[in-house]
């Protein structure tokens, strides 16, 4: 199914981060020089938010993926400074500010439940499970904004096959790390922690479902779910669980965080669907970060050709 090609140009080759940050520093230096000339500018250059140093490292040898979209990438700055990660605060800017000391090493992911070979994977093991691919996916938040991100990882099914799910495994439950000492803001989030998510087994095994370890040519920044997360591009963003510590194969549909918070607003499936509105707002359109006006939202976030067959015969309004 996957067409493997030799790594060609990836995001990291196009825009080395050193250049990117240099450019910012130059711009900032210009701002400061300008302030020396025009005193009035001092305030505005002081107000420039300092770029957070992201403790990421480069990932190389990335294969391209036929699943990638050719749409324009959202800027790295936007994807790292506009996040929902309630463990680090509910404001979009909070995760970038408050996750910088989050310890992501050592890290391991425990895989358990209805599997023949339950085991723990260390981060090093995960990185070596399969060749890393760059997959440029659309990502649509339930709040009606969207981004295009060059994620890095491999199909979740690669890991799943290693632990050999038994015939009883119908669903997969996922869990984010919850450490209140590192996540003091979590208690104001209004939702229960640890954050949990779930997929039906066939959804989890779909080749689009990505076990993600990086983006933009590098390992994941903390605010984007370091060190390892899921990316399920045809579902609303909150299904793509961050900072994953536990994966459990099971017979029953697992509880999911936002569904538990408000089941009529956030369904278990949460497939992107412009025809099924959130009770409080329409899902027919979205704003791509970087745009002013809205664009139409696509069924299954534009991945209908690949995933629509998973839901044949299902009432997608009832199973929203």
């Amino acid at each position: 199914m996957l067409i493997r090609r030799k790594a060609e140009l990836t995001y990291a080759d196009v825009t080395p981060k050193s250049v990117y940050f240099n450019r910012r520093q130059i711009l900032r230096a210009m701002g400061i020089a300008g302030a020396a000339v025009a005193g009035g500018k001092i305030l505005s250059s002081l107000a420039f938010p300092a770029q957070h140093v992201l403790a990421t490292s480069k990932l190389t040898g990335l294969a391209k993926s036929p699943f990638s979209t050719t749409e324009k990438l959202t800027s790295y700055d936007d994807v790292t400074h506009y996040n929902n990660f309630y463990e680090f605060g509910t404001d979009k800017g909070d995760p970038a500010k408050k996750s910088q000391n989050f310890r992501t090493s050592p890290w391991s992911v425990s895989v358990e439940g209805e599997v023949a070979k339950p085991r723990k994977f260390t981060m090093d093991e995960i990185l070596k499970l399969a060749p890393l691919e760059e997959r440029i996916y659309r990502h649509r938040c339930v709040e009606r904004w969207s981004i295009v991100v060059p994620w890095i990882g491999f199909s979740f099914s690669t890991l799943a096959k290693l632990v050999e799910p038994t015939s009883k495994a119908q669903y997969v439950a996922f869990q984010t790390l919850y450490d209140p000492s590192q996540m003091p803001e979590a208690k104001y989030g209004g939702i229960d922690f640890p954050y949990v998510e779930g997929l039906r087994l066939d959804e989890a095994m779909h080749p689009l479902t990505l076990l993600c370890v990086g983006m933009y040519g590098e390992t994941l920044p903390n605010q984007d779910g370091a060190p390892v997360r899921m990316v399920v591009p045809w579902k609303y963003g909150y299904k793509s669980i961050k900072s994953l510590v536990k994966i459990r194969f099971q017979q029953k549909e697992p509880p999911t965080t936002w569904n538990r918070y408000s089941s009529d607003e956030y369904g278990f499936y949460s497939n992107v669907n412009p025809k099924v509105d959130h009770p409080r707002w329409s899902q027919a359109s979205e704003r791509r970060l970087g745009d002013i006006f809205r664009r139409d939202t696509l069924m299954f976030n534009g991945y209908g050709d690949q995933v629509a067959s998973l839901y044949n015969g299902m009432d997608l309004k009832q199973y929203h």
Partner: protein
Amino acid sequence: MRALLFSKWAKACVFVLCLVPFLALVERALHGRLGANPVEFLQHATGDWTLRFLVFTLSITPLRKLLHLPELIRFRRMFGLFAFFYVCLHFFTYIGPDQSFHLAGMWQDVAKRRFITVGFLGFVLLIPLALTSTAGWIRRLGGKRWQALHRAVYVSAVCGVIHYYWLVKSDVRKPLFYGALVVILLLWRLGDWLIKRGKQAPVPVAAARVS
């Protein structure tokens, strides 16, 4: 303090202060510092400032009485009009970038989404208040009727808080904060009204005894 409030410069200074949030937004926009989602940034900022100015407006009457500073009345209309100014900006960020200036789409949204309905109601209620905020209109309507009309600001403030509460996903701290302020300010009025009524009630009895 009193002299300061009376001075002719006080009003001009407060006016400029009220414009600062707007100027700050313009400055941010010019320097591209509205974040990853500039439209949302403007919507949230103008919505926040609308609620703040409604709270300022509603604070004037209690503060006049509690601080014995009746002169504060000089600022009430200005605060109210600034609430209207910020809610207009808020409305334009919605009808423009959100609805692409399609009135039909807006009406659908207003009819269907309770959070839009209640926000829209709060906005519409402020329009007649802004229009009749002049001395001429007070005279034309008569003090009593004008005052009754302008009590609509209580409803508008409550609508604004509910609008905010229904917007957020799960962290309701900020909407509850504004809600608490509005409730306190309205409860104070209720208390004030009850005390006044209590004081007035014996009057007819006493009058009857004299006659």
